């Protein structure tokens, strides 16, 4: 097996998600190479060795300066064809998803997306993809090589192995249509910050807060944890918090690594919007609240006491 991992970078840093996929690829065995595409990125390429790549292909070209997908498809297609790559893995992002799909069409190669795991089974790769709001896990495979896969963001953490990678340069040629799109302005932050769909940590408040003024407790904890604030339909409906933060059937669907539910009973309308979350912590004074059926740590108690204390402890820990 010869696996290439697309290493996305932003502002001079390799992205954690791609490095996580690199680590996973290394654990599957075979040759694992990283691919860094950009302009002025040769130094970045060497860093990938630490995370499991034995070799890193780097293409350094002005056409690859802006984070646009199509020139990257050209480079990867060439790599696959010329270097006997049979598997290309991506950590999903806006850029990586477009690159993967373009490459799939270019190579007529099977692409499985939204995977949360991959394993080798008797020489074949088998991916795991949650479906239907994560209520079913589907095992997916590839009918031929090359095999392409996109992993759900944040699925794997990078593993530092401390190795060094040999760097080899690629000299891709580009299709006309691939360079037709041009970047006018790049990566402006939205003034209101990332939406709750993009947050790694969400602290959510429900009716149990008792009143809109107590959202300050939720906000303080979210700030301490570096996360975003979300709300249930009941409190949005009551006008305690804005609609844009509503999680659930008629609001947003989120899947952060950590979801802290404060005073949320856990009605199914809410659950379907957050059941893809990694770790769920629930604080509720009602021991029979349905939320306790689908959390990892359930705390029966008064959130008005627990949350401020928790915020303080988190702050202390972060400061220390």
């Amino acid at each position, binding site marked *: 097996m010869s696996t290439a991992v697309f290493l996305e970078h932003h502002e001079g840093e390799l992205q954690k998600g791609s490095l996580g996929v690199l680590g996973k690829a290394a654990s599957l065995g075979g040759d694992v190479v990283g691919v860094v595409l950009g302009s002025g990125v040769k130094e970045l390429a060497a860093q990938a060795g630490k995370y499991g790549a034995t070799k890193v292909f780097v293409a350094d070209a002005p056409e690859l300066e802006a984070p646009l997908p199509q020139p990257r498809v050209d480079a990867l297609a060439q790599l696959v064809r010329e270097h006997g790559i049979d598997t290309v893995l991506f950590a999903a992002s806006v850029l990586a998803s477009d690159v993967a799909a373009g490459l799939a069409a270019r190579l007529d190669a099977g692409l499985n997306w939204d995977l949360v795991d991959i394993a080798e089974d008797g020489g074949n790769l088998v991916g795991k993809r949650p479906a239907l709001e994560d209520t079913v896990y589907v095992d997916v495979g590839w009918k031929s090589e090359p095999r392409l896969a996109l992993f759900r963001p944040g699925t794997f953490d990078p593993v530092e192995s401390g190795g060094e990678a040999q760097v080899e340069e690629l000299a891709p040629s580009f299709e006309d249509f691939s360079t037709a799109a041009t970047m006018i302005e790049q990566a402006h932050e939205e003034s209101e910050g990332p939406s709750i769909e993009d947050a790694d940590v969400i602290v959510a408040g429900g009716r149990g807060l008792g009143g809109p003024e107590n959202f300050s407790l939720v906000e303080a904890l979210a700030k301490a944890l570096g996360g975003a604030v979300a709300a249930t339909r*009941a409190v949005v409906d*009551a006008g305690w918090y804005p609609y844009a933060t509503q999680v659930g059937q*008629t609001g947003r669907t989120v899947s952060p690594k950590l979801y802290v539910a404060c005073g949320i009973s856990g009605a*199914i309308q809410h659950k379907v919007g957050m059941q893809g979350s990694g770790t769920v912590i629930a604080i509720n004074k009602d021991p029979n609240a349905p939320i306790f059926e689908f959390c990892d740590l359930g705390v029966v108690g008064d959130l008005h006491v627990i949350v401020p204390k928790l915020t303080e402890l988190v702050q202390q820990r972060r400061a220390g």
Partner: protein
Amino acid sequence: MSVRPSDFPPPFTPREFVVEPSDPPDERIEVGILIVGAGPAGLACAIRLGQLVEDSPELAERLGEVPVAVLEKGKQPGSHLVSGAVVNPRGLRRLFRGQKQIEDMPFYGEVEAEGVYFLRAKTAMRIPTPPTMKNHGNYVASLSQLSRWLAEQAEEAGVTILPETSAEKLLVKDGRVLGVRTGDKGRARNGERLPNFEPGSDILARVTILCEGTQGHLTGIALDAFGLEGESPQVWALGVKEVWKVARPLRRVVHTMGWPLRAGAKYREFGGSFIYPMGKDMLTVGMVVGLDYRDAELSVHDLLQELKTNPLVRRMLEGGERVGWGAKTIPEGGFVALPRRLHAPGLLFCGDGAGLVNVPALKGIHYAVESGRLAAEAAVDTLRPGRTPWTPGALGVYDDAVRQSFIWRDLKEVRNMRQAFGRGFYIGGMLAGAMTASKGNFPPGNLETERDAEQPIFRTDRAKSYPAPDGKLTFDKLSSVYLSGNRTRDDAPNHLRVQTRVPEEIAVLWERMCPAQVYDAENGSVEVTPSNCVQCGAITAKGGRLTPPEGGAGPEYTLT
């Protein structure tokens, strides 16, 4: 001192919903005949009109480019329909005149056997089936599915169905009904126009036929506007039902009476349950209770949950999975509550909206179908050369036809049984009937029926004994709302008119009564969550007023 919901009337006047056409003439939508509601009455009417149009090119020309249009507020025909249902196929046979056979219709099968039980918490005693409840020759159906099929037949007959469109106002000028105005779409909670605001339209028609079903919004408006309310007020029951996938087929139709309702006269808990087979692997189980009950803590949703813990019912559901849920009111006023006339100039009333329900037989669908068919014929009759549907009394041919039909015969026949049955379906009624039989039969004219909202309310601790939801056999209201397919936008205007500062008993009454958790009693006031609403209509019976929300809102029933 007792409180009555009627002491706290909703902020609602029928007059706001009676208007003259306001769109500029070139923007008005003109159709031949306009039907409001794609249920069994409306679709039967549409299908019959399709047949008549096909038979008469002259009529087709007279009716114009869009000869027949049906407005439906649900996402599609059937989205808002809930019924038992054991259907008497008589009306459908007459409608299709042999062009469609029973086998073509989406029935789950003919009733093969039936049983009636008297329940206590842990026991079930079989009792003889009352003659009016015999179902030989009838068929089990999901009314939601049956109506979707009828809608296909109507579309094939050239009828235009306009789903996701609510009929909000009645267009009336000079005492003539000219059509309806549809509801706006894209307003925010406070009524402001959102960027995608789409105003309602005036739809003008030669004849408007209201087939809105129970608690019909414009039906209520029109009965008021034309002074057509019956001698006795209309009263309702609330039905809540579930559909289950089950491990073993149920082979018979089952009705139960008694527990979990209380027999004490002061409670006025008249009702019972039904359990019908739906093919080899499904069944439906429902609970119906008259809305003249008095205990603020009564919840039909929770009574249904309790019912399922009786061994008879639990056994049927063992190893099964709940796949559907729905709630709807049923008009129970019977013959004496029928409108004085079933027509006004340019307007006809059909089906459940008009109260055409045979209470002791638990049937109404065949009357809906038959009345829709008769309305189609009456409407066409007034469109013959030299006649107009707006001439006072011209549409009286419809009343005559209904009076000569089996609808009238059946309803009149059971009029005198009404006392024997007390209020409502089932034995709650029958036992009451037996108890009161000694008092003899009052002529119906002497019956003082009170509106459901006029019943004095008291509060017990009934709710304490409702089973805790376990998510397998018993469920909470919000998971039921979820299963109804309701995903109504949360920032839409509130379509429920209720007073929000009311005594605790009234607040608790609404909170418990509503099967969809729309009302929360909070320290002397009522919090309303309109997006949960499945438009069952119970609030209208019990002191508030349901108005049509934005078209497309509400449940999306598929199995009920």
